[in-house]
């Protein structure tokens, strides 16, 4: 399962491959994932699709370095993903964020720069420029001083994307980014994810709205505790594939819970 195209990144100019080999992950003493292998690279937008509890979040967390790998390997640019990498950004599920935390939009985005600045060094001009650019790219320029609960759902997602951009991440891992967004915000976020992909970033998102998969993603990983299939959307996102993943075919056009 090697990724066929996209061997260079528009935003840095050399090939960046994420390769997962025979991954097995335990989560709270239960084997959450086994036999997961796939390879993709910057410039792709990958949907993780599978029933609830199929291990989508577990896979994202494992790639982010949050969960120990029981066996197998996760390789980013040819080297094993250590505990963490600045180049891999993890975006939490919306319900896991404390929206009442006394922090502003720019405060969150600035956190993305802490890995570069370290624990003590004041921000350099380059840091400030990266922060400002990230805020602008995500269309948050007028909202910098807002507390994060005073934003729409779509804006809240973009705050965390802006943090990932400030971090200069290549890989964006999103856990159900469309959940809880209204129609307009969903459309807006889809466009944003496409733009980030076109820019040469690798977007991997757990996704459960079957209706919108075709509009957003170009690759699909079908997951149910193990990888059922991985590949280009047209080849993998088929009735047969979904049936193998969900046990039964999800009702056409309906959300699969």
């Amino acid at each position, binding site marked *: 399962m090697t990724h066929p195209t996209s061997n260079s990144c528009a935003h840095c100019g050399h090939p960046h491959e994420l390769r997962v080999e025979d991954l097995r992950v335990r989560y709270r003493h239960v084997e959450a994932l086994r036999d997961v292998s796939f390879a993709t690279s910057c410039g792709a937008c990958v949907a993780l699709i599978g029933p609830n509890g199929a291990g989508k979040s577990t896979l994202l967390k494992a790639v982010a370095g949050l969960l120990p790998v029981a066996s197998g390997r996760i390789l980013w640019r040819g080297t094993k993903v250590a505990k963490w990498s*600045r180049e891999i950004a993890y975006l939490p599920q919306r319900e896991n964020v404390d929206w009442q935390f006394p922090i502003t939009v720019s405060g969150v985005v600035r956190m993305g720069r802490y890995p570069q600045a370290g624990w003590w060094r004041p921000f350099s001009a380059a840091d400030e420029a990266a922060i400002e650019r990230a805020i602008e790219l995500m269309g948050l320029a007028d909202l910098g001083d807002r507390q994060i609960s005073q934003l729409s759902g779509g804006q809240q997602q973009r705050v965390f994307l802006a943090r990932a951009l400030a971090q200069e991440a290549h890989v964006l891992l999103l856990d159900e980014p469309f959940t809880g967004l209204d129609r307009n915000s969903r459309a807006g976020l889809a466009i944003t994810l496409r733009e980030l992909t076109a820019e040469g970033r690798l977007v991997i998102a757990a996704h459960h709205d079957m209706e919108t998969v075709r509009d957003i993603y170009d690759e699909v990983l079908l997951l149910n505790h193990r990888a059922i299939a991985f590949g280009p959307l047209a080849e993998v996102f088929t009735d047969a594939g979904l049936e193998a993943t969900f046990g039964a075919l999800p009702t056409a056009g309906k959300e699969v819970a």
Partner: protein
Amino acid sequence: MSDWLMEPFRHPFNQRAVLAALLIGLTNGYASAFVVLRKSALKVGSLSHALLPGIAVAILVAGLNHWSVFLGSLFAALLIGLGSLAVSRGSRLDHDSALAILYTAAFSGGIILLRRLGVVQEMEQWLFGNIMGLRNSDLWTNFWISFGALGTLTALHRPLLMTLFDAEVAATLGVPVRTLNYLLLAVLIVVLISSLQAVGCMLALGLLVAPAATVYLLTDSTNAMFWGGSLLGGVAAVCAVLAGWWLNLEQGPAIVLLLGVVFLLAFLFGPKYGLLHRVRQYRGK
């Protein structure tokens, strides 16, 4: 009139009390932001009770001096804190229940032991504080504790803030979340001990929660919460000590009571998140 106002500043034990109140208020106020943002007020409260048996054992073993009290209470709080973690991990009981059992048992043991050590008259001081009884050496201990605690918390401000906001994301950005959590708890215990003589272990929690909680109702800025909490803690503690002198009130309880009143005012009349403002907004809709 001015005699009456200036009276408190004439006596060295009063000057010490005011200085100690300022130090303790500033440190506790700053640290209180971490307690509030971590939503761990009850855990910290349990640990403050765990200080008492530590003091009792320390007096029993090494006699009464401020190093024995400091080390004894620190050790007891760590023991109860880590012990409760061990119990909850080693059984099916949740952490809060384990902590509740351990700290109340230890607290009871502390009371029984203190009563038999012949220091009965000081029992109330350990429970509710006696800021007028501070000596110069106590003031220095407080100073170093404040200095160390504020220094640590300020130096680790970025990683701590990330951990508090979202521990998982912090971990993906290279923050040693678990270590920092333990370190933060240790610093909070030390800060609790620093206020032991002033407000006692029953009331220490108030000083370590109320300041930042009040500012939390007034602002959305993280820095305001830390430094505003610190300022409020310091000013309120000093005012309460002076008011205690002028109005003949117990100083320790006066500090915590004043902080409670200020909190209530913020809750009711806060310009943005105050109850009255929100009711008015709701009616206006």
